[in-house]
């Protein structure tokens, strides 16, 4: 029973990280129909920003986690410049396929550029303690503060984001653009600015995910975002890509599957299981669990 509960908490913690990253994927996919492969690497950018700014924060007398605000700014800047420099010119000229290849190239560029910068290098860096240590013990299960904070922050962020897309002007513009680009131009929406805003918000979410990830696994390396990003994408597809509640749901499902496979089946097969679930879902319900199947029109 205690193993079960422990696994459940690990799964929820992992799931909330996946959900935050999946939100970034799903928002960008919803608006420009592009799998932003570089999204996973934004997590890496956030992670390294925090590695370098946590000592500064501590020296200033602030708590270590405050560096997440700098990471959010840096990630948003990287995300917006990726859109402006790479994606927008290609989108104007090429097809969906060329945009996808550009996204892969940008992802490789970020990973390898980070390695080529001498201050970063290929070796992992270790972060200091971010949240307070310790936890509470309930019925033989230790529930540490990091887990509780991770789940709590992600739930708050997700509710905030959902409200943002439903209630605010920019949020409504985003939904409008993702539904029909040309109609939203007619409605007086600045489509390009909306896309850039979406990139900024999606990338800042990955900065928050980076904070939660390194609070749990305090190791930052240049390819940390690749697998994390991939699983988050699987989560987004699982829930129905382009749908915000779907990404949250998918993230928690993937996190739970992974933690239960690791503790009950085999840790090396966890990744294979995640993809197996993706394949099964895509065969049965190609639009995702919460998605609607829309036929293609000529």
């Amino acid at each position, binding site marked *: 029973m205690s193993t079960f509960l422990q696994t459940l908490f690990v799964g929820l913690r992992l799931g909330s990280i996946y959900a935050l990253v999946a939100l970034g994927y799903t928002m960008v996919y919803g608006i420009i*129909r592009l*799998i932003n492969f570089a999204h996973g690497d934004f997590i890496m950018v956030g992670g390294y920003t925090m590695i370098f700014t946590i000592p500064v924060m501590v020296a200033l007398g602030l708590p270590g986690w405050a560096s997440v605000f700098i990471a959010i700014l840096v990630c948003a800047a990287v995300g917006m410049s990726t859109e402006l420099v*790479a994606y927008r*010119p*290609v989108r104007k*000229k*090429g*097809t*969906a*396929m*060329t945009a*996808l*290849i*550009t996204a*892969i*190239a*940008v992802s*490789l*560029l970020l*990973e*390898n*550029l980070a*390695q*080529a910068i*001498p201050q970063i290098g290929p070796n992992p860096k270790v972060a200091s303690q971010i949240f307070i240590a310790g936890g509470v013990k309930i019925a033989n299960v230790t529930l540490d503060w990091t887990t509780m904070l991770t789940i709590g922050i992600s739930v708050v962020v997700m509710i905030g984001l959902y409200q943002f897309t439903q209630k605010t002007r920019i949020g409504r513009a985003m939904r409008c653009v993702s539904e029909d680009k040309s109609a939203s131009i007619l409605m007086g929406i600045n489509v390009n600015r909306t896309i850039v805003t979406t990139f900024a918000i999606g990338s800042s979410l990955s900065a928050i995910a980076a904070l939660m990830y390194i609070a749990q696994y305090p190791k930052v390396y240049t390819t940390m975002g*690749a697998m994390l990003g*991939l699983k988050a*994408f*699987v989560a987004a*597809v699982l829930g129905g890509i382009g749908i915000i509640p779907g990404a949250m749901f998918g993230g928690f499902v993937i996190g739970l599957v992974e933690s239960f496979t690791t503790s009950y089946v085999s840790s*090396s*097969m966890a*990744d*294979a299981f995640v*993809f197996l679930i*993706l*394949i099964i879902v*895509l*065969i049965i319900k*190609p639009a995702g669990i919460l998605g609607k199947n829309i036929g*293609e029109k*000529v």
Partner: protein
Amino acid sequence: MIKNRTAQGYLLNTVVIAVLLIGFAFFKGALGGGGEFKLIIVPSIWQCCYLIILAASLNLSLGFLGQLSLGHCGFMAVGAYAAALLSLAAERAGVFEDKSGTAFLLVLAGCIIAAGILAAIVGLLVGIPALRLKGDYLAIITLGFGMIIVNIINNLPFAGQEGLALGSASASLYKNGLGFGTALKVTYIWVAIAVTLVCLVMMFMFVRSKYGRAIRAIRDDEIAASASGINTSYYKTFTFAYSAFFAGVAGALYACANATLSTSSFAFANGGILNSTFVVVMVVLGGMGSLTGSIVAAVIMFLVNYQIKNGVWVQHLPAWLQNIFSFPMLVYAVILIIVIMFRPKGIFGSYELSLRNFFSDIKLQRQNRLAQKLESKEALRNG
């Protein structure tokens, strides 16, 4: 003079290939078959051969069918392991003693074909669920497949991470199975060249057949294609399996050319030359929809890769550039982005290099460009 233009083309190509082969033989004689020739040129030709097959086979699904597969090296891994294990089994069963004679050649041929067929079957199994979906999902599923295949091969009792099991794994593959040493690579260089030529002929025939026309129609407009009576899912799955077949053959050549096999060399993006991203770079560089473009791009990218790693001139560059060159994937990513930005369909586009039409094509292109310029000028004048 032969009147039939097709026959002319075939004759010209045959003559050029024959001249190249004779030239190669002379070259070999001139160098005396030792030192540089044995250690650098022959291994490079082996490497180029499987890279050419790999790039051209991915072009079938990426360029002609329009479906991005990011797990192409996974099929190659299947082929490589199949060929290596089969040859090892044949050796243990006593079919051949040393690596010579007809028995060995038959085993070699069998291994190469079996590697291709096994990869094609795996490609079919991946393709049937994945190709029901749009291109984006296929990219992700194949990417996942590339990772799963590494997982599975690592966990197989008779394969394993270190190469092949039973004691000192990789060394035994090298000595007994398919792996060729330097001397054998020189002896069997014709195998690599012949396999590459046969594969390329098969791919060209495929592209020019009814199948090739059908998949190009699917690439351009899937709905219109299916409305014209093309069974899209059949053609898509078939092309995917066909392209996986050649990736398997390339894997078999890889198993021949290398002393050891390890799954990490077939990963999605490792630093080396063999990863699925590198194959995508080759195809995009050469032109999506141009087999000759893939061949040229494979050779060019091999040379770039070789020069970045071993070139003498690299040592004379400033330190920061040398630092960048120690991460070749960074260079490839930049190349990829630049090519995609300025020529979204690759350098060759869908143009096929042809010896027969080479000069007339250049003339034609110049005329086209002039006409376009005139047109745009006219448009400007007319507002």
